[in-house]
């Protein structure tokens, strides 16, 4: 069994860096822990869920996907390829790793997105099993587990009461990573820690059933009233993947950019005519919930929510998908049951 002292994660990062990997990991800046490129000396924070998700490594907020040079009244295309250096993503949470199934599916179901795929191929993911779950966590309600990361290349499992991390390679890339880091890994037994209890739970089956028949429920209006219509939840979400394409032009040429976009923003579905098929926040919030818990499972057989709880942590108004799911589950409680039913 290969393991690593929990306080030597930086050494692991340094070893990988030396082996030619670009390392991304939870690092802190200005009091905020973010998934970001690691640089020597930076502490890797395993005690916090980063504010952004692993998604950013494969699908950054903005990237250039095309370039053209002006030529008279026309343009000459310049080949634009993704920047995809060999990368090791360290200490990603199981819920973030779980979202890769959604991203892989959506970026490859028809058109194969070479920018996403190139980075996906160039990146090895070493997940970190959770040792704690906070009140926003709900991975177990959406089919996840805090202590397993299917889809990762390796798993770092806390052991010996958090002092040690057991390194479990899961794929060949994971084994390459372990090999590259062999200098900092040690052999020997360690007692894996018990997974944390995820206290928050709702019945996803009941939610799904309710969604199927309640597109026009007045509950959407009530649930969405606190929503101010920003994209904080979507951008923090490991599975949200909407984007907008913008051309920025100048006298010398044009750059085509792919920028994140979000269904919560009022302009998301605004037509040039001025018509907006999702005219209010209720229909936008419904879309977000439906997409995650109904449309994506139906279309890709994967949930677009992995229970990471980030939406609840970043929302300026304290809304969260879990809150909504719980309300729906409650609304879906058998209406004709003994509790609410007509006395026999």
């Amino acid at each position, binding site marked *: 069994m290969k393991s690593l002292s929990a306080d030597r994660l930086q050494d692991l990062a340094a070893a990988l860096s030396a082996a030619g990997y670009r390392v991304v990991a939870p690092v802190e800046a200005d009091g905020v822990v973010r998934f970001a490129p690691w640089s020597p000396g930076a502490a890797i924070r395993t005690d916090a869920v980063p504010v952004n998700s692993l998604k950013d490594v494969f699908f950054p907020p903005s990237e250039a996907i095309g*370039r*053209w040079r002006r030529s008279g009244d026309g343009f000459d295309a*310049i080949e634009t*390829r*993704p920047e995809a250096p060999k990368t090791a993503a360290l200490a990603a949470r199981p819920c973030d790793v779980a979202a890769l199934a959604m991203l892989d599916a959506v970026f490859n179901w028809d058109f194969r997105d070479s920018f996403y795929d190139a980075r996906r191929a160039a990146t090895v993911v070493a997940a970190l099993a959770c040792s704690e779950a906070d009140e926003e966590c709900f991975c177990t309600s959406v089919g996840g587990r805090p202590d397993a990361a299917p889809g990762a290349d390796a798993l770092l499992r806390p052991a010996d009461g958090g002092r040690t991390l057991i390194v479990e390679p899961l794929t060949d890339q994971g084994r390459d990573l372990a090999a590259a880091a062999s200098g900092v890994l040690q052999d020997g037994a360690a007692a894996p820690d018990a997974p944390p209890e995820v206290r928050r739970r709702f019945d996803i089956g009941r939610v799904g059933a309710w969604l199927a028949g309640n597109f026009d429920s007045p509950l959407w209006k009530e649930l969405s009233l606190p929503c101010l219509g920003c994209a904080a939840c979507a951008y923090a979400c490991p599975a949200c993947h909407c984007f907008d394409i913008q051309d920025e032009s*100048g006298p010398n040429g044009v*750059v085509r950019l792919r920028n994140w976009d979000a269904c919560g923003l009022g302009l998301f579905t605004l037509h040039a005519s001025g018509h907006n098929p999702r005219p209010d926040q209720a229909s936008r919030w419904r879309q977000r919930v439906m997409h995650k818990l109904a449309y994506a499972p139906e279309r890709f057989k994967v949930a677009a929510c992995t229970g990471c709880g980030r939406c609840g942590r970043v929302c300026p108004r304290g809304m969260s998908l879990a809150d909504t799911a719980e309300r729906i589950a409650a609304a879906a409680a058998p209406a004709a049951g003994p509790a609410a039913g007509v006395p026999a």
Partner: protein
Amino acid sequence: MSQAGAPRITAFVCNWCTYAGADLAGTSRLQYAPEVRIVKLPCTGRISPLFILKAFEGGADAVLVSGCHPGDCHYTSGNYHARRRWGLLRKLLDLTGIDSRRLQFSWISAAEGQKFADLINDLTAKVREAGPFAGANPARKRLAPAPEEAQGPRRES
């Protein structure tokens, strides 16, 4: 298009005073540095802060804003409105790294051709001394549409 290393100065001027002042510099054959590019507006009051941000974004080494002297505005008070705007904007830009060497304000009347020429020469000299802004410009767009090395793959690996 300008010579390599020459500073780029974007000037936002009003039609009635400073543009005419620049005309007078011309009719008086006053020589000044050729790096300035004038964008003519009806009034300094028309100049949105976004014009200035956009000029810096595009790589201007300095921006000049110039119009009628206080009290002389063709539209009576456009320049007063503008002055209040700049009183705040220049402080904000300074705080975030675009200091007063890069952002110049001046009142130049239609009669002040000499002042216009002197100002352009001074500003050009000042900007030359401060050096090119590209590296330190926080507003700068760094999205070369046709970067020299972009002829081939940009990946190192």
